[in-house]
């Protein structure tokens, strides 16, 4: 009908009793992402570790492992088929987890800038590696932090999913940006960033290479966008010298919002250009940060029309006023 794809877990279908209606606290128990528990995860794909330590042993700072319960599986060829009026594709893809720190309770604001730079560099190198696989069309990088944001483990981690198709929301953004580009021969994101940094009303932080602001058309209260000031299509092509700027704005922005909402659950997503995509001129990578402060209800689902109880100008003012 509207061209949206969904993933159906046929390998481990959940029984009705597997769903918890209300999950308020963390499950507890042994954390497979903690230092010393390396044997509880699948073998690592890569890691930043001290010299002379072996893979899958302690001595690491950032570690990448395959997801133990992947939404998609890496083996096999892509196979699309029809079933009456319906379209199907097998679930080929990659699903990796970047364990951001060996320490269970350290989120981004608790890490050193250099540690965050390591995380960014690791995410980039994994994305660059996955891009080489011809079956994949899009690399999606995101973080779920806190149970109400959909994180199943408490230990801070980022996820990478390589997809055999470009997801619908990304396509829409790319088509929108392309239409603007065709018409004005300028990138809409560059124009937006120019307008935001001039008006300053919604800007939270700005450094040499990046700006963080509450978007004019926020969908959620305290939604934040972090974008490179210079036009750039691919996140994974970020120049080495810009990584410290990104680490610092990411840390300072999240620190500010967690000062306002100490127990905040959040999601962030890196929006980047599809691999070898068509009509991608005028697309500009960026990070969308979405605090989980509201319950999305029927109206939002039905319309794709969001109700924002805190205007972004006001949210930006609260965030700006927080002292580090």
């Amino acid at each position, binding site marked *: 009908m509207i061209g949206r794809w969904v993933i159906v877990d046929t390998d481990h279908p959940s029984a009705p009793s597997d769903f918890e209606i209300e999950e*308020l606290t963390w499950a507890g128990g042994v954390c497979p992402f903690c230092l010393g528990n390396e044997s509880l995860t699948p073998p690592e794909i890569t890691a930043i570790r001290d010299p002379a330590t072996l893979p899958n042993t302690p001595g690491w700072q950032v570690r990448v492992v395959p997801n133990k319960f992947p939404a998609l599986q890496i083996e096999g060829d892509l196979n699309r088929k029809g079933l009456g009026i319906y379209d199907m594709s097998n679930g080929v893809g990659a699903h990796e987890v970047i364990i951001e720190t060996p320490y269970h309770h350290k989120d981004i604001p608790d890490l050193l800038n250099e540690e965050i730079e390591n995380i960014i560099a690791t995410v980039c190198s994994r994305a660059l590696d996955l891009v080489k696989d011809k079956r994949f069309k899009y690399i999606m990088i995101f973080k779920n932090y806190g149970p109400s944001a959909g994180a199943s483990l408490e230990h801070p981690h980022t996820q990478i999913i390589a997809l055999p198709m470009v997801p619908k929301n990304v396509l829409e953004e790319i088509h929108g940006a392309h239409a603007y580009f065709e018409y004005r021969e300028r990138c809409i994101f560059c124009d937006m960033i120019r307008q935001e940094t001039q008006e300053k009303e919604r800007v939270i932080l700005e450094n040499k290479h990046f700006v963080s602001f509450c978007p004019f058309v926020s969908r959620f209260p305290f939604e934040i966008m972090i974008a490179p000031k210079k036009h750039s299509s691919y996140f994974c092509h970020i120049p080495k010298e810009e990584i410290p700027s990104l680490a610092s704005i990411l840390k300072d922005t999240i620190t500010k919002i967690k000062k306002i909402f100490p127990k905040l659950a959040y999601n962030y997503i890196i929006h980047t250009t599809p691999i070898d995509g068509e009509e991608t001129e005028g697309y500009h990578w960026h990070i969308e940060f979405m605090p989980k402060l509201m319950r999305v209800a029927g109206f939002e689902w039905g319309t794709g029309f969001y109700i924002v109880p805190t205007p972004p100008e006001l949210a930006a003012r609260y965030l700006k006023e927080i002292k580090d």
Partner: protein
Amino acid sequence: MPELRKDPIIGRWVIIATERAKRPDQFAASAQGPKEGPCPFCEGQESHTPAEIYAIRPNRTPANTAGWELRVIPSIAPFLRIEGDLDRHGRGIYDLMNGIGAHEVVIETNQHIANIADLSDEQITKVVACYIDRIKDLEKDTRFKYVLVFKNYGWVAGGGRVGHSRSQLIATPVNPKRVKEELVGARYYFEHHERCIFCDLIKQELDTKDRLILDIDGFIAVAPFASRFPFEVWILPKKHCADFTKMEVCLRRDFAKILKQTLLKLKVGLNDPPYNYILHTAPFRRNKVGYWKSIDYDYHWHIEIMPRLTRVAGFEWGTGFYICPLPPENAAKFLREVKI
């Protein structure tokens, strides 16, 4: 006045509350619902709600007093305001308009019952009739393009503090994006096949029966092939009809019956889960030349029920790509076997 803003990239509108702007300390930190307070929706409490817009009063009792079976009131916290003229303007690269619209609450029963599934077939038939009457009335206001009818049941699903069964109607001055996407998709299929995609879907589901949950008189309830959520259910009329308000009067009771049985199966089988349902119907068509010419043929009204059992996380938000942990065939089998 709330403000509507348009995303310059993908064309999505959002509503920004400017008057009742929330401060950071007004967001509840926990996901747990607050304790239930006194109920303003029960019979005898009429003075605690805004004045009614519509009511079913079989004994012709005066408005805003006891003696009603169903009441519609304006929302106490409306997302959009009814007064004023539409005003669209630009600000730099951004588009905005003032937040004109209507936001009404249907109090579905005078009893303090939380879930519509526990109301009688007769009472749900009245709810259906009320939806139709209210949509038809709002259609007269030419500022509106669409009326969204939906229900939030349970705190997690966005429901309120009070466990008294109700649903909401919102009339919007623009056609919402998801509604448009569905219309465009249906029209595209019609252009290629000269058939309604929903009619084809119903035929295929009745043939294969894998995803069929209920087949009652003029309606079917199915777990959709591309379910976004576990136990997602759609109810569709078997006979082609684009517009919910054009449903034949004799079908209203059948629709009430299948809605009740479906929701009851979810309640019994899944331990009373929170859910949302949303009515999908054709937007207002006011004799615009060339506008959605084929809509009466290519679109087919239906209702989508989404139990809220999983949380939507970063992946779904970012991609619009849902991970459904339960195949709809298994969900349908489970729901078929639930005894109600």
